[in-house]
């Protein structure tokens, strides 16, 4: 534990990277999230499941700063030797800079920009050039720009999108668009990657490829992943721990085997007898 640790790490031997405590979100009279606790272990895939409207995406939006949660706190432990940071109340762009990146349920690419530019925009928060640099194009800016392009190309090569680097994002096939969104999020050099239904609309073989991709990102890029997904075979295969939401509440948490047998989860998904 770092001496400057403002938020003490939970005991119990788990090395956490993100800890959300008592997250609540109220829209008018509607309680979308009700005091949810969720933690992500370092270098693991954690899944978040639940019926439609159970508050999964709301939770994502609260954690990534798109919404301001009504109550609750999110604490990030960037590394074992670095002090922890509270992400409470920070705007979305600062949260991304701190190391959280996300994809969206409905693909939100920059459609009229090229694939490479999409990834370069992901690099935005890791670059520095401002107005002056842009206008003068001094040595530092040019070097930074070249490095950014190189980094983005490397990512595209790794994830098999380099052949389409100069194509507009909207012209990509659906599966590639999903992959590009993940690559764009990876370009921000995240510590935690939040994937919102990445398998939606993919066929069986594409989903299998996605599963390998997720494993690859966790193992090679050392990125911890929080996954919202309805595809149960994917969830059960990749995740170490699963959280189940229903009506904005956390109804179950545990490893996949336990969740599959949990009567509360079965009830939430299939209804009562």
């Amino acid at each position, binding site marked *: 534990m770092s001496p400057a640790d403002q938020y003490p790490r939970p005991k119990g031997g788990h090395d956490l990277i993100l800890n959300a405590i008592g997250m609540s979100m109220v829209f008018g009279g509607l309680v979308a999230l009700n005091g949810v606790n969720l933690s992500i272990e370092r270098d693991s895939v954690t899944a978040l499941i639940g019926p439609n409207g159970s508050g999964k995406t709301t939770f994502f939006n609260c954690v990534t700063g*798109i919404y301001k949660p009504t109550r609750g706190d999110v604490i990030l432990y960037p590394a074992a030797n670095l002090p922890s940071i509270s992400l409470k109340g920070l705007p979305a*762009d600062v949260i991304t800079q701190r190391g959280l990146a*996300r994809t969206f349920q409905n693909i*939100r690419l*920059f459609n009229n920009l090229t694939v490479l530019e999409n990834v370069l*925009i*992901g690099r*935005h928060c890791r670059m520095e*050039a401002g107005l002056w640099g842009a206008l003068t194009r001094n040595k530092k800016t040019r070097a930074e720009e070249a490095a950014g392009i190189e980094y983005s*190309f490397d990512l595209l090569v790794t994830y098999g999108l380099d052949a389409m680097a100069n194509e507009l994002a909207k012209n990509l096939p659906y599966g590639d668009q999903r992959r590009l969104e993940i690559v764009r999020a990876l370009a921000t050099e995240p510590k935690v990657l939040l994937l919102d239904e990445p398998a939606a609309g993919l066929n069986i073989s594409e989903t299998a490829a996605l599963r390998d991709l997720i494993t690859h990102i966790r193992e090679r890029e050392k990125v911890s992943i929080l996954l919202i997904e309805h595809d149960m075979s994917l969830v059960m295969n990749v995740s170490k721990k699963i959280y189940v939401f229903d009506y904005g509440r956390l109804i179950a948490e545990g490893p996949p085997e336990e969740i599959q047998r949990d009567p509360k989860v079965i009830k939430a998904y299939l209804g009562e007898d």
Partner: protein
Amino acid sequence: MSVIRQDVSLASIFWSELKSALLATLWMCLLAFPLMTLTINPTEKTFIFSLERMPYLAGGTFVLSILWRFFLKRRAFQGITKAVHQSGGLPEDLTKGPKPTWVTVVMGLRHKRLGFFLLLAFTIVLPFVSSPYTVNIMVTALIYVTLGLGLNVVVGVSGLLNLGYIAFYAIGAYTYALLNHYFGLSFWVCLPLGALTATLMGLLLGFPVIRLSGDYLAIVTLSFGEITRLVLNNLEVTRGPRGISYIKPASFFGIDLNAAPKEFLIKWLGVDPSMDINKIFTYFIILALVILTIVCVFRLENSRLGRAWLAMREDEIACQAMGINRTRAKLTAFALGSTWAGLAGVVFASHITFINPASFSFLGSILILSIVVLGGMGSIPGVILGAIVISALPEQLRFFSQYRMLLFGALMVLMMVFRPGGLIQSTRVVHIHKTKGNGQARLKALTGAPKPKTGGYS
């Protein structure tokens, strides 16, 4: 798709189109009935009813309607064949970039540099071989080019609909006019001051509109434009609607250009003797400004800041999720866009030497917006062409005198239907990877094996 099934014969399409055209004709005749049949006889103060103009109206409407339908149909059909082609898998040439259009062929990469130098040479020689009238039109056109490129940063690149852009132009012009009128400051001092004032006003307007986008932003900026005009109209300092006259033109190191240099130019270069050499000087100032603007806008567009603007235009939520500070991006776009309006305003004031609030009406904002839309949102050559077309076209259409605004409107409608991306659509810069990696193979290695422990990934 049922639309292109074989059983939909050409004949049935033809008859249905004919029917629609007849209906349109009937509708037009009904609408225009009172306009076309009734005339007033002023001497006898009576209405004259005559149907003799109706056949012309009907015939004209019918022919135009048929043509209109034909082109729309053709366009729709082309769209369908393209969609069918694409749904059959990816086209082969996906890596080769966009398909060449007439513009890319004309401005082919090989001759781009040559074309650029020819254009530059032409613009430099132009004032020495043409009439004062042409130079005047060219100065106006180049002012519009600057304005168009400035607004392009706000509307085309950042996607913020600004309907009050003319206000910043007015602020630039009045900055020079007032400082020159009351304090006798020169053009060269006021040029940066005007730009600075406009930038600050852009920031000032930027703060309240940070949270707004789309329609709301359009309304607020529209009001800002009107408020600025009304303030200028009612202030004592600005002399209200009387405006400010005898604004000094830009000086060339204090030398009277219409004396010795003029004689030299007439004698050695054969310049039109009726030419005001100050106008030629203004022309070169605005030309330099346009070149500066082009360089700046191009550099901005392909920089970290420019990409943040583009991302904001494409998707406000995704841009924040990518770590872009939306507030800062919006403010810089607003402020920088206004800078060029300020610069253009100072040149405008020195060019026509008399300004009043009527020069900065709402129509001006719309005109600059049409330059951006007509030329092509986000496209630098498009906006330049758009500005020249919009400022020169009314001059060319003088022949049609009172109908020219009507023709102008019709032209805009046609453009939006048949070429919604503008005259020259914006294209993105192509980056070529230095070390060609075999991404597809790598991906296969990555996703083919369940645990890619020894994959080609570095």
